[in-house]
């Protein structure tokens, strides 16, 4: 019930936030912040007394009681569809990330949103609710439902509060994800059908659908359906082209949520569903997937370098970074998987922060074009320093979270294929190139004379607080990632065991 409540709090909070606009324009964002904090506090208080948290056991796929939390209620018994939510280490990590970044996104929307504050915050909260659902749902029907429904408020966030080209971007985002979602729906239903033929039972439950026996050919096709849906969201090369537009056009808070959380649902889906449901097919497919991942790493980096739009550059850097996640998942050993999970968390913070910086710049300069910037450090040293920090994080400076992630991925990947690792490692070089050019064009270089009398305001309290949270998080992840690793470890362990048994019949 805790998990249902978590989602309900956000849903209702959204309604309250929307209605609260009548009380004043600046009320909704406070409401939203309170709601998210409440949700977080609720989750933490529920976890507090949980003895299993200190010594997480491996969640067995065939035994829901070994999971941290499990909830199941009938929903559409005609098809064996139930409201089944469960929480294990990885889900918990993602849920925590979602809530923290959600709060950060509210902070990002503080001054960014000019109209319809209430509806904006409502959409934000609803998106978060949908994402939580995605991370917790273990009924495939329910998962698909959250997967699709979370896009709608996100669509509104881009379409209503986005920048100059918002219509196009929102549409592209929605169509890419929906069209790929259709494939997943087809694959899901086919999987259920196969399971139905085998057992005579309708069931959408993850636990029932694991180990569904099916011919190799079928497994390949079904796996592909899931795979495409997830890698579009991830996004992986060559399905990434919605991302630069959506990220660039979204309002800051939208970009934060998109990059910080929504992309992770794709990675989560791969780890949770695409591979475990079809272990053999995934194994056969892993070379293609890893090739796509490596291509994405390099391609995203090259594209990032060619951009002159601040946000677009950051967006392409996401493509590059998520390539590592794809590599990590399909290397499918403990090191690489830990790296992928780590990357999900670390990238969430680093990219969210960069988008917030981009948003702050746009708010102050009314442009994202880096050709209009230059030498901003002089007027906004704090923002410059913060930007430098996150740029360094994004290029994988050891000591910060992203490095741990990328290194673990590469380490795991190396055991599978040194050559793909070598290609992916090119991303470290190209990553440095685009990251540094970002700093050069915006904060360094000759100050743009046009901006001299702009009276630019440096980061102040609220912004610094938000940034500090993320900086501390990244340093913590970089120097002592163990808590995160420990949370994910038992889950990955059981996934690995399960699939390895499958792979060797």
């Amino acid at each position, binding site marked *: 019930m805790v998990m249902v409540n978590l989602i309900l709090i956000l849903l209702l909070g959204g309604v309250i936030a929307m209605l609260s606009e009548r009380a004043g324009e600046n009320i909704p964002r406070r409401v939203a912040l309170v709601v998210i904090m409440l949700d977080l506090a609720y989750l933490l208080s529920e976890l507090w007394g949980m003895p299993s948290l200190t010594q997480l056991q491996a969640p067995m796929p065939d035994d829901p009681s070994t999971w941290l939390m499990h909830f199941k209620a009938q929903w559409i018994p005609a098809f064996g569809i139930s409201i089944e939510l469960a929480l294990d280490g990885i889900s918990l990590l993602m849920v925590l990330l979602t809530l923290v970044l959600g709060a950060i996104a509210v902070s990002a929307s503080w001054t960014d949103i000019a109209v319809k504050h209430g509806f904006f915050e409502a959409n934000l909260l609803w998106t978060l609710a949908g994402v939580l659902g995605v991370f917790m749902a273990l009924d495939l029907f329910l998962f698909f439902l959250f997967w699709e429904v979370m896009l709608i408020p996100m669509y509104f966030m881009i379409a209503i509060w986005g920048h100059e080209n918002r219509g196009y971007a929102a549409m592209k985002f929605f169509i890419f994800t929906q069209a790929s979602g259709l494939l997943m729906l087809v694959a899901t239903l086919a999987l259920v059908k196969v399971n139905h033929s085998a057992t005579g039972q309708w069931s959408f439950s993850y636990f029932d659908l694991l180990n569904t026996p099916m011919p190799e050919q079928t497994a390949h096709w079904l796996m592909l359906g899931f795979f495409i849906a997830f890698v579009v969201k991830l996004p992986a090369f060559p399905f990434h082209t919605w991302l630069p537009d959506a990220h660039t056009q979204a309002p800051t808070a939208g970009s934060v949520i998109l990059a910080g959380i929504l992309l992770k649902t794709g990675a989560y889906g791969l780890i949770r569903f695409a591979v475990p449901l079809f272990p053999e097919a995934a194994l056969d497919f892993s070379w293609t997937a890893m090739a796509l991942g490596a291509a994405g790493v390099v391609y995203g980096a*090259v594209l990032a*370098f060619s951009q002159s739009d601040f946000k677009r550059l950051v967006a392409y850097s996401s493509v590059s970074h998520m390539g590592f996640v794809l590599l990590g998942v399909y290397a499918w050993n403990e090191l690489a998987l830990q790296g992928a999970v780590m990357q999900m968390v670390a990238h969430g913070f680093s990219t969210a922060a960069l988008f917030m910086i981009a948003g702050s710049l746009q708010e102050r300069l009314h442009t994202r074009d880096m050709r209009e910037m230059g030498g901003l450090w002089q007027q906004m040293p704090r923002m410059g320093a913060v930007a430098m920090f996150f740029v360094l994080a994004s290029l994988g400076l050891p000591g910060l979270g992203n490095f741990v992630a990328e290194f673990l991925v*590469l*380490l795991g990947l*190396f055991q599978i294929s040194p050559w793909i*690792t070598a290609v992916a490692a090119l991303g470290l*070089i190209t990553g440095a190139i685009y990251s*540094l050019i970002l700093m050069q064009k915006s904060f*360094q*270089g000759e100050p743009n004379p046009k901006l001299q009398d702009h009276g630019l305001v440096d980061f102040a309290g609220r912004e610094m607080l938000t940034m500090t949270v993320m900086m501390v998080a990244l340093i913590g992840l970089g120097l002592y990632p163990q808590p995160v690793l420990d949370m994910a470890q038992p889950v990955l362990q059981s996934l690995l065991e399960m699939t390895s048994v499958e792979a060797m019949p």
Partner: protein
Amino acid sequence: MGDMIWLVPLIPMLSSILLMLGSGSLPRVIIGLLGVCSVGAAAVLTLLVGLDFLANPQPFQMTLWTWMQVGNFSPGIAFYFDGLTLVMMSVITGVGFLIHLFSTEFMEEDVSYARYFAYLNMFVAAMLVLVMADNLLLLYLGWEGVGVCSYLLVGFWYQNSANGQAARKAFVVTRIGDTAMALGLLLLFTQLGTLDIQAMMGVANEQWQVGDTLPLIACLLLLGGAVGKSAQLPLHTWLPDAMAGPTPVSALIHAATMVTAGVYLIARTNGLFLLAPTAMMIVALIGLATSLMAAFTALMQSDIKRILAYSTISQIGYMFLALGVGAWTAGIFHLMTHAFFKALLFLGSGAIIHYLHHEHDIFKMGGLRSKMPVTFWSFMIGSAALAALPMTSGFFSKDQILLQAYLQPDAGPWLWLGGLLGALLTAIYSFRLVFVVFFGEAKTQPDGDTGWRMALPLVVLCGLAMVGGYFIIPVAEVFPVASGEHPANWVEYVSISVPLMGLLLSYLIFHSGQLNVDKLVNSSLGQWLRRFWHSGWGIDWLYDRIFVRPYYRLSGIMVNEPIDAIYGLIVAINQTFNHWLAESQTGRMRWYIASMVFGLILVLTLALQISAEAL
């Protein structure tokens, strides 16, 4: 005392963080004090720990916490302390302290005083982590950390985009090496199951035979990192450009400490390199080639800092040569003495630049001998040590390198000859610098000579550059015992005399003018060589054509997302269908009826044809 070593990097780090946080509000005095004293404290601590160690030379390891643990991969935030660590720490904190002190005066006028010291302190911290690291991953952390600090400091005056360009070049070029090194780490872990340096070398010795392919690949990958960081061929091009940073930065990072990290890395992993004689040979050859290439280039430069930069490249080449021939101790020894005299030279040049209104061109200087006596003597001593004139610190270290190179079994004499040529050139260009800048007629008037905060480091470094050669570095335990062989005496005599010849030549050419080389220089071949050498053997040009421009062109092509064009095509197809079909909706009823008739015929055809087949 040993369990305090974690404080050594921590103090400068904390100071750096404090300086960053308080950059807007702290008064300058506090900033200076914080910056200098933190490194001073680190130096004192190092000294104390070092004394302890010398009394009881027992290497020890200290784990602060496990950095991460995934399966059997569990690198720690852990330090390892032995003689080599001590030498490196002493150089870093000692020379670092002096340079910090120097900087308080040098940077006095700068608006970003706090930022400067924050970066510089952070650099010291990172460098300390690098040399103290117990495992390669933590070493990599320090390694990248110093790279970032170098980037930040080279581009310290960020408003000039040329500086930014230089800084990025420094970072990216070294990153290429670093990536190779990272791959090396991956390979080592995958093969040996650990990244703890000591344990790893042990496993490697058990698992691999001398001459195996895997250690060769691993060593070459590590060498890639070392080559990048230490500015050796083919990744040396960033160092001359990195001179865009403030001069004390050049002294600290690009002469004394960071650029020698590659040497340290190879020395630290000597156990691996011993398993790969081919890699050792490559190290030696790279070192020799770099040292000669850079020496020739230094000879042609007119920018005082670039001369010193190429000289640094050249000297590190010597160190590589030493490592390559197995003269580990000599290499580290040269590292130390080089740190003394090159820091001295850089600081000296910093003083000149500071008081000469940021003049870099040595041909616009001249006759500074009397105006800046402290600087003059610094340069004299520094150049003497650089040229390895007898009794200077450089002499002892370089002499050892050359002698051991001679003993290298495969190509010893050739390496030795190459080294000699380099030594000759070194002597020529270093005294060329002295003669041109300090003798002759005065062309620019300096504002005065150094204040005490600049003078003191110079004087101390002068002393170190003179007597540093008598130090005995406690690394005997770290490296395998060298063979007790000695080459024939004539080898030694030749080695000693060559620098002196260089000095003489330099005197004759650049001071007395008795040896006129104008004709040679002005010949077409001479001109060509001059340009060729001046440009650093055209390597920058080559890289620009092979890598930089194609990358820009590629990104220029890609800016509009070729992949998106595919989706654009899909959209266009749909739009075309939409267009055609919308055209078909003419609004004319007869046309609609025609469509229905067509439909009827279609349905009838489908229905009838197949049933006819079924008959």
